[in-house]
């Protein structure tokens, strides 16, 4: 864990209620599947946001405006600074991916799939991506995934774009392993539909985000785990629904 003051480079709307923020600052210790925890003026608890992309000195976050905190965040301007705790969470283990990993992201669960796809690519593994959204106006990053050379499927619940339905309606594919992030109902559906092992990234209300307060503990087959420290990524084998 590091405490880094990032400077906002850009903060733009990329879909309905969805913003992409690029920051400059030291990204050491950050890995795919991890999150950063942001201190916002006027709000007591930090806001955990999953990592979408990073270079040694820039960080890209995609966040959805869901409350007063993220709304305030969406109004921040380039040049302003953000106090962040970085390197939080266990992240994805790419060693188990096999050579044809499937990435399944839903809504705010799409961003971590992007940086994961890049890492897998760097390891010589071309992944297939399924991006699920409610409707066309909420969809984002299809082009970015394609630009990485990922075979990319987009689903929308209302059918206004891509495949009508849920991510599970696009899962009849050939894959060696999978990684997924999204709302819990989606994770359950993926769990039931999937035919291989895989890794799931969970969300929970957190106090500290670094394992101190036990605020986000969940039960697993291998004991109690803190989503913020022992997670957010759990493997299929350990999950208890």
């Amino acid at each position, binding site marked *: 864990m590091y405490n880094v003051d990032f400077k906002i480079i850009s903060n733009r709307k990329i879909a309905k209620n969805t913003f992409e923020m690029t920051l400059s600052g030291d990204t050491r210790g950050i890995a795919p599947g991890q999150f950063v925890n942001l201190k916002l003026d006027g*709000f*007591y*608890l930090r806001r955990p946001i999953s990592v979408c992309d990073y270079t040694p000195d820039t960080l890209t976050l995609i966040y959805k405006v869901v409350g007063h905190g993220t709304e305030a965040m969406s109004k921040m301007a380039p040049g302003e600074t953000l106090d962040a705790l970085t390197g939080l969470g266990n992240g994805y283990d790419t060693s188990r991916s096999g050579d044809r990993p499937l990435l399944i992201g839903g809504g705010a669960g799409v961003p971590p799939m992007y940086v994961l796809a890049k890492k897998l690519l760097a390891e010589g593994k071309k992944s297939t991506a399924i991006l699920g959204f409610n409707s066309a106006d909420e969809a984002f990053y299809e082009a970015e995934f394609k630009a990485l050379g990922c075979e990319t499927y987009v689903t929308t619940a209302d059918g206004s774009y891509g495949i009508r339905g849920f991510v599970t309606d696009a899962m009849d594919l050939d894959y060696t392993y999978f990684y997924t992030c999204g709302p819990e109902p989606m994770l359950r559906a993926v769990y039931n539909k999937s035919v291989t092992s895989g890794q799931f990234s969970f969300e929970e209300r957190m106090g*500290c985000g670094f*394992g*101190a307060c036990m605020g986000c*503990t*969940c039960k697993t087959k291998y004991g109690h785990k803190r989503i913020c420290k022992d997670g957010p990524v759990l493997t299929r084998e350990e999950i208890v629904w």
Partner: protein
Amino acid sequence: MTNTQVTLSGLTLSNPVIPASGTFGYGYEFAEIYDINCLGSFSFKGTTREPRFGNEPPRIAETASGMLNAVGLQNPGIDKVISEELPKLRKVFRKPVVANISGFSIDEYAECCERIDKEEGVGLIEVNISCPNVHCGGMSFGTSPESAAEVTRAVKAVTSKPVYMKLSPNVTDIAAIAKACEDAGADGVSLINTLMGMRIDLRHRAPVLRNVTGGLSGPAVFPVALRMVWQVYEAVRIPIIGMGGVACAEDVIEMMLAGATAVEVGAANLVDPFASKKIVEELPRVMERLHIENLTDIIGGAHHG
């Protein structure tokens, strides 16, 4: 030259800053980012006889200048704490720790205290009779002078270490409860535990916390905590560990002026993992600015006549 030393029932601390139970785990997460031996001590995660998962999530909610938690005493149980956590803890923290003990019956309190009494790494025992997040037990012992005294007597009978009773602010007269603990033999009191609060999710029209209510902590409660420390200081002669929303060195001074001998830092550790360290470092500078040479000189310093 400023002197930050304080003494709790014979236990001398290099400074009065003690991370509060439940906000510092067993110290490991913090030891990874700074040498926690700079702290006066720390109070480890509340321990019960049996292992506990605690409450179902969500366990956390945000409030103005504060937070609610309803963890519900998650802990591995006294056996594991003694056999695994304490030995690991000794590797990262060389000073005596504060052992925070909880229970659901007088016997459980006594048994846990008796077990922990044999651990030489433990400097004093903080008996939590004020957890608002567990049912039948916890806070119920801390809301009447009689039951608070009963727990005090039971634990004092089985330990030779200083016993500090951790009191609930969710009462009409905290001073009467503190007095009852003193009369029952408590070596000190620590206060305040969290104020019972709640939040409701407007979209789902349901409580945010699965436990419905939770414990409020953070700067929001500081003025209430300060008032209670003040009232208890006027009612008892035993030392007080003050806590509740302490976020900076000035808050530590304010708590001590109200009557605290040492001060616990809670929620601040969760928002800024370096908070306790920063407070320890700020303290001498703030003391100089306020012309305080020996920190012990200001304990209860705002009570005159």
